[in-house]
């Protein structure tokens, strides 16, 4: 995880990329593409939208890199670009997605089939809750903090919020997630999971 601390290697890559070094661009993008695609997938719940947004964010980053002043890490800067694209897309299309379990690829860890099914359903249930029960504002802060370990400061920079608003919204987002995950129709599923000796957590 690349945090606020910029690694010397990253600074070197950015400086080279700004001078037009294709290899340096590739190096920077390679480190971030899996992260960015997952972030967009978690925010949109839609594989096609996540794919489009990830590509658009990289194209925009490619074009704007010369204006990047290293005031934040490359990841923070790139995430800010991607989140703005996500917000614009959300405003334009107001997508009403229906999540499809088959569309969401589950990493194959060589599980037994029954474990794979439970794990797959859990992924679906979490995405469902994020997508349909947590509003965009709260989803953004929750995903950045709890799925990508961004610091409060990084989140403030990315979302353009004060530190105090970030903390308040994160807390609210967690309460909403808990309330919806436990209180929504996912409750039975959660209860099942928790009563298998928290088997869910070891999958």
């Amino acid at each position, binding site marked *: 995880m690349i945090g606020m601390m910029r690694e010397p290697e990253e600074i070197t890559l950015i400086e080279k990329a700004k001078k037009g070094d294709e290899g340096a661009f590739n190096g920077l*993008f390679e480190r971030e593409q899996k992260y960015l*695609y997952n972030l967009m997938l978690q925010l949109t719940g839609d594989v096609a939208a996540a794919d489009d947004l990830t590509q658009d964010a990289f194209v925009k980053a490619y074009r704007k890199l010369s204006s990047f002043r290293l005031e934040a890490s490359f990841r923070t800067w790139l995430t800010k670009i991607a989140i703005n694209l996500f917000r614009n897309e959300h405003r334009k299309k107001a997508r009403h997605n229906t999540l499809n379990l088959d569309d969401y690829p589950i990493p194959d860890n060589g599980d037994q089939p029954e474990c794979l099914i439970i794990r797959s359903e*859990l992924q679906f249930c979490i995405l469902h809750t994020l997508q349909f029960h947590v509003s965009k504002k709260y989803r953004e802060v929750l995903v950045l903090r709890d*799925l990508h370990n961004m610091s409060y400061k990084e989140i403030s920079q990315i979302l353009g919020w004060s530190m105090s608003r970030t903390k308040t919204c994160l807390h609210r987002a*967690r309460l909403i997630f*808990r309330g919806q995950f436990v209180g929504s129709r996912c409750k039975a599923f959660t209860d099942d999971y928790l009563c298998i000796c928290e088997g869910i957590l070891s*999958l």
Partner: protein
Amino acid sequence: MNCSEAKAFFSEHLDGTLSKKSRAAMRRHLESCPNCRADCESIMKSLKILKKLKEVDAPRDYRTAASKKKNGKR
């Protein structure tokens, strides 16, 4: 620290970002208040579940696509 103050700081408590003084006050409150303790634990449990969302591989290599688009190639 009372219950409403404690509730406002649950997130920071779980993230370990409270000051030393607030952390000690929170610990004392949670030890003496079963309702807040249960509330805080349930948030922690739901976050533990959220974090079970696995990362997937990106479906393609975006470096080439970005480079082509940037250079105006189709």
